[in-house]
C-alpha cells in the first residue's frame, strides 16, 4: 500500500487544485453565512433554500439540453445552472415569507412545505430530463449529492469572487448584523435600515447555498451552513471570533474532505482493484465538518460536554466535603467533644468507608481538618469558619423561604441543603440585607454571625 501524498500537491497539481480550492472557498462562504443563520435560530432555512434551488438546477440543465449545449460549454452550463438555482432558491424564500406573513402559517411549517414541494418539483422535472436529455442527466445527479472532482479553474474564480463579496459584505455590515441578530426591535429603534440589510443577508444565504450545492449537494448543504458555526460557538463568546473560527473550520473541512476522499479512493482502488469503491467528496466534507463539530461539543473549554462533566463532579465533591465538615462541627458541638473518630463519622454518613477515608484525607491535606494523636478528626480554625458559614447560609435561606416565599417551615430544609453550597457572597449580602440579618432560623436554631474575628 502506498503512502499518502503530500497535502501541498492538492494546491499545485493541475487536476487536484480546482476541487480543493473550490471546496475550501465554498465551505468558507457557507460557514460565514451560516453564523448568521445559526445565531438567528433559522437553521432550517438553509435546508429549505438548498432544496428550493434544485428545480433551478434541473431547469438549467433542460435549457442547456434545449439549446444543444455540449460538454465543451462546461463553464457556460455551470453559470446557467448557478443563476437559475439562485433564482429558484429566491423564489422559495419569497414563498416562505409570503406563506408566513400573508397566510399566517407558522414559519417552520412554511419552511417544510417549501422544502418538500420544491424538491418534489425538482425530482419530477429531473425524471423527465432522464429521458429527454439523458446525456445531461449526470449533471443533475451531481448537484443532488455534490461532485467536486469535476471542478475546473473557472470554478475557483467564480467561488473566489463570491467569497470575497460575502466577506466584504459581512465586514462592512458587521455592526448592523450584530445588533439586528441580537435585538431586532432595538436595531429598528436606533434607525438601522432593517429591510434592505435583511434582503442583503438573504441574498448572501441564497448565494452561499447555490455555490455549495455544486460540491456538497442539495441534500447535505445545510450541514455545511450549521456545523462550523456550532463548533466555533463552543470556543468563544465574541461574535467576530465566531465568524473567524467558523470560517477556519469550514476551510479545514473543505480541504480535509477533499484530501481524504481522494487518498482513500486511491488506497481502496489498490486494495480492492475489482470493486470500484468510491468515497465521494461532498459527504466526506460534511463528515469532517460534523466530526469537528462533535469534538467541539465534547471537548471545548467552558462549554464542552467533557469539562462540564468534570465541573459537575467537582461540585458534587464540594457538596459532600462541605456536608462532612458541617456534620463534624455539629457532632462536636452537641457532644461537646473536641474531635470525632472515624467509626463515629462512618456511622452517620452513607458514604463507603473507602470514599470517606479519601475525603477525610483530602480535607486534612487542604487544612480544613486535622488528625489528633488519638486518631480522631478535629476541625481546624479555618475548617470551623467554613462549616459555620455553610450553616449560616443554610439557615438564612430557610428564613428567606419561610418569610418571603411563604413555604412551611417543615418543608424548607431539603431546599436549603442544596442552596447552602450555591449561594455566592453577593447573594449572601443581598439576603442579609433583605432579611435584616436575622439571628434565628425558622426552627429556632441560632444563625452564626457573618464575620468572625
Amino acid at each position, binding site marked *: 500500500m502506498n503512502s499518502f501524498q503530500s497535502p501541498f500537491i492538492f494546491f499545485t497539481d493541475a487536476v487536484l487544485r480546482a476541487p480543493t480550492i473550490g471546496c475550501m472557498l465554498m465551505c468558507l462562504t457557507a460557514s460565514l453565512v451560516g453564523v448568521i443563520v445559526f445565531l438567528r435560530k433559522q437553521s432550517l432555512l438553509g435546508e429549505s433554500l438548498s432544496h428550493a434551488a434544485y428545480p433551478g438546477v434541473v431547469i438549467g440543465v433542460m435549457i442547456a439540453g434545449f439549446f444543444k449545449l455540449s460538454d465543451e460549454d462546461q463553464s457556460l452550463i455551470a453559470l446557467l445552472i448557478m443563476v437559475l438555482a439562485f433564482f429558484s432558491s429566491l423564489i422559495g424564500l419569497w414563498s416562505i415569507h409570503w406563506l408566513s406573513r400573508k397566510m399566517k402559517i407558522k414559519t417552520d411549517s412554511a419552511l417544510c412545505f417549501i422544502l418538500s414541494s420544491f424538491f418534489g418539483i425538482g425530482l419530477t422535472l429531473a425524471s423527465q430530463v432522464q429521458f429527454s436529455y439523458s446525456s445531461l442527466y449526470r449533471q443533475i445527479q451531481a448537484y443532488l449529492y455534490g461532485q467536486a472532482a469535476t471542478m475546473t479553474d473557472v470554478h475557483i474564480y467564480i467561488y473566489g469572487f463570491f467569497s470575497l463579496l460575502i466577506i466584504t459584505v459581512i465586514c462592512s455590515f458587521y455592526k448592523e448584523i450584530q445588533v439586528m441578530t441580537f*435585538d431586532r426591535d432595538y436595531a429598528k*429603534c436606533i434607525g*438601522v435600515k432593517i429591510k434592505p440589510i435583511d434582503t442583503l443577508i438573504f441574498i448572501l444565504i441564497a448565494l452561499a447555498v447555490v455555490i455549495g450545492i455544486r460540491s456538497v449537494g442539495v441534500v447535505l448543504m445545510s450541514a455545511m451552513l450549521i456545523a462550523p458555526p456550532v463548533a466555533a460557538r463552543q470556543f468563544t463568546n465574541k461574535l467576530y471570533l465566531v465568524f473567524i473560527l467558523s470560517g477556519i473550520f469550514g476551510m479545514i473541512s473543505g480541504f480535509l474532505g477533499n484530501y481524504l476522499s481522494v487518498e482513500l479512493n486511491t488506497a481502496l482502488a489498490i486494495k480492492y482493484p475489482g470493486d470500484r469503491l468510491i468515497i465521494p467528496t461532498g459527504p466526506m466534507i460534511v463528515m469532517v465538518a460534523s466530526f469537528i463539530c462533535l469534538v467541539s461539543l465534547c471537548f471545548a473549554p467552558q462549554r464542552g460536554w467533557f469539562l462540564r462533566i468534570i465541573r459537575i463532579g467537582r461540585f458534587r465533591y464540594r457538596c459532600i466535603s462541605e456536608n462532612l465538615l458541617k456534620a463534624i462541627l455539629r457532632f462536636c458541638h452537641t457532644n461537646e467533644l473536641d474531635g470525632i473518630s472515624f467509626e463515629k463519622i462512618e456511622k452517620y454518613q452513607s458514604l463507603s468507608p473507602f470514599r470517606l477515608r479519601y475525603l477525610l484525607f483530602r480535607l486534612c491535606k487542604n487544612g480544613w481538618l486535622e488528625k489528633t494523636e488519638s486518631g480522631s478528626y478535629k476541625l481546624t480554625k479555618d475548617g470551623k469558619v467554613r462549616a459555620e458559614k455553610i450553616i449560616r447560609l443554610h439557615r438564612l435561606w430557610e428564613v428567606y423561604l419561610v418569610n418571603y416565599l411563604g413555604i412551611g417551615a417543615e418543608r424548607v430544609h431539603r431546599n436549603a441543603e442544596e442552596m447552602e453550597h450555591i449561594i455566592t457572597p453577593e447573594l449572601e449580602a443581598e439576603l442579609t440585607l433583605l432579611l435584616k440579618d436575622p439571628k434565628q432560623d425558622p426552627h429556632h436554631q441560632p444563625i452564626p454571625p457573618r464575620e468572625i474575628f
Partner: protein
Amino acid sequence: MEKPIFEVHQLTVNYDKTPVLFDISLSVPGGKLVGIIGPNGAGKSTFIKTALGLVKPISGKVEFFSEPLKNVRQRVAYVPQRESVDWDFPITVQDLVLMGRYGKLGLFRFPRAADYVACDHYLEVVGMLQYKERQISQLSGGQQQRVFIARALLQEADIYFMDEPFAGVDIATEKVIMDLLRKLKSQGKTVFVVHHDLNNVENYFDWVIMLNMRLIACGSVSDVFNPATLNDTYGKSFSLFDEALKISLQKSKGIKP
C-alpha cells in the same frame, strides 16, 4: 401648560391577536418621570412599541418635539424588556452597551476611541464597569437590566422608554435604576417607564399614563392617580368592550366565532 414634547393623536392599534389600543390621544410635557400603568394585556408595551415605530398603528400619529419620530430618532432611546432577547448571544457587556452608539455612527463606521471611553463611563454609572469583558449570559437578571440601561444612556437621548425595568431585579438594582431616573429628570430628560407595582407609583413618578386598551387618565400623579381612575383601569367595566373588540377582530379576519 408648557409645550409638550410627546404627543399622541387618536392612536388605534390592532396587534396580531387581541391586545389593542383604541383611540388614544395624550400629551406629556418635558422633564417628567412618567409611569405607564395598567393590567396585563392592557397594551402598555404595545403603546411604547407603537410610539417607537416598532408596531404599525391602524390610524393616528405620534410626535416627539412636534416632529415625526424619523426626524428625531437619535433623541429617543429604548430599553426593551429583558426577556425579549437571547442572553446566550456571543457578545460581551461592552459590545452590548456600544450598540447605543451604532445609530449615531451610521453605516460603515465602527466605534471610535471616544465611544469606548463613553461606554466605560456609563458602565461605571450603572455600577457594571468591572463586568465589561463578561459574556452577557453570565449576568444576573438585575445586572442584565443595568447593562440594557447603560446602552440607552450611551445614546445620550432626551426621551427614554423603558419596558418594565423593575421586573425581576434585585433591590440594589432597583435603587440604582431609580437614582438614575431621578438624575435623568434633573437633567431635564423625560423617562417613560412601563410599571407594574402600584405601591410605589406615587414615590417613583410625577406623571402617569393609565391604560386599559383605552386611555383612562394622563396627568400628574397628584391630579389623576386616585381610587376612581384605578378602579377604571383595573376594574371589570371593560370586559364588554373587550368582548366586542374580539368579535370585531374575528369578523375582520373572516373567522367564524
